[in-house]
């Protein structure tokens, strides 16, 4: 509360939501002009699916059990690519320093980056899902699956944004993010894969609900944790 009051004294016009919105808008506008992040993520995601196709011999019976696993592995790998790039751009061009100099709450920067990362990830997922459906003749348009993907992506990006802002400030930054991120997002993967395949196989809601709850708990906890500790990650 104190912090918000302080920033309000310096610059009365910038509300918390306004700052978050401005950062999201900046990222989306930059992406709209360059399209380098989305295109890289998308091509990468399609290549991962292609690799799985040959690695797993995706015939009809394998597909039934493997679809949710393949989807989540694809999202995870493509997501890392996007997170790395989105923070590296800030760091390389000195944008991060500029953002930190701005008299705004640091956590607003976190939420801004998180929401734009989430937007990129969802865009990739929105494109990958129909392509996967067509390629493998599987119906993926399931409202339950959409909710799982949304919840899973929120948790993934919540931790990912925090860790990628740490990783870009290290010497080994490009290789470090997946190493830092994967061990701590395993709960998301377990719950998301289980819940997705539950919905795809038409299990009843009571069987899937524990995993949905787990996703919600993870999202809430890690958004809160990242909100609290982001200050320490960007402090100079």
């Amino acid at each position: 509360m104190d912090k918000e009051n302080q920033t309000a004294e310096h610059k009365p016009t910038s509300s918390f939501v306004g700052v978050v919105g401005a950062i999201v808008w900046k990222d989306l506008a930059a992406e709209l002009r360059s399209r380098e992040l989305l295109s890289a993520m998308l091509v990468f995601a399609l290549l991962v699916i292609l690799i799985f196709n040959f690695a797993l011999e995706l015939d009809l019976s394998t597909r039934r059990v493997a679809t949710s696993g393949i989807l989540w592995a694809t999202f995870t790998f493509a997501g890392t690519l996007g997170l790395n790039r989105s923070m590296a751009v800030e760091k390389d061009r000195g944008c991060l320093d500029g953002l930190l100099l701005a008299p705004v709450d640091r956590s607003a920067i976190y939420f801004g980056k998180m929401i734009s990362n989430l937007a990129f990830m969802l865009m990739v997922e929105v494109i990958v899902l129909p392509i996967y459906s067509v390629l493998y003749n599987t119906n993926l348009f399931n409202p339950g699956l959409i909710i799982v993907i949304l919840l899973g992506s929120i948790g993934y990006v919540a931790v990912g944004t925090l860790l990628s802002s740490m990783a870009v400030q290290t010497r080994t930054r490009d290789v470090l993010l997946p190493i830092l991120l994967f061990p701590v997002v395993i709960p998301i993967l377990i719950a998301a894969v289980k819940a997705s395949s539950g919905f795809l196989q038409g299990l009843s809601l009571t069987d899937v609900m524990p995993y949905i709850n787990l996703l919600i708990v993870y999202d809430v906890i890690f958004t809160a944790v990242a909100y609290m500790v982001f200050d320490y990650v960007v402090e100079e």
Partner: protein
Amino acid sequence: MKPQPLALKVLNIASGLLFLGALAMVFLYAPLEITMNYVQKIFYFHVANAWVGMLGFLAAAVAGVVYLIKHDQKWDIIELTAVEISLVFFLIAIAAGSIWARPTWGAYWTWEPRLTTAAILEMVYIAYILLRQGIDDPDRRARFSAVYTLVGAISVPITFMSIRLFRTIHPVVIGSNSSATMGSFDMTSKMLFTMFFTLFAFSVIFVDLFWHRIRLGLLAQQVEEYKLEEL
């Protein structure tokens, strides 16, 4: 370099004696288990190592939070100490568990909640050490590692719970036991006593190692300061 304080010297000898005592208890005092025979003996060390690993895990989490509040380099050293000790002892616990599991479960490894969680925890620790190695500035290194410790300390228990949603075959020696577990056994009072003695011995060894590692950490910090002065 300051000489070791008397308490530490006493602790060194005590942990050595307790370790020998634990060995003697396990091999001479504790009775043989009927179905598993000598294989069961490794159980005492497996539990003790896992226990020390857990102590280290908790200590690291606490030290991480305290560092973020106090910004004192001392807590960074404590956190690193706890992580390193926990890393090694969990590795021993996993190895001992695998040796036990081969004759009992018929495989060195199963993807069971505790085993998987222990493996993931090791991964978190290795990532932690890689993160530290990638940062030169001591202050930033301490901040980032404290944040990562915190993230790991919250995510690993959630991982455990999420895998636990499936059933488990790991025996729960103390407390209730579901029928799905394999290789569980009822402990006689002698076995129970041996187990608690081993746990105690390893706790003392943990404290001793902890102390030594903190001393080493403080020395390393001094060396770093001298190097900075040279520049």
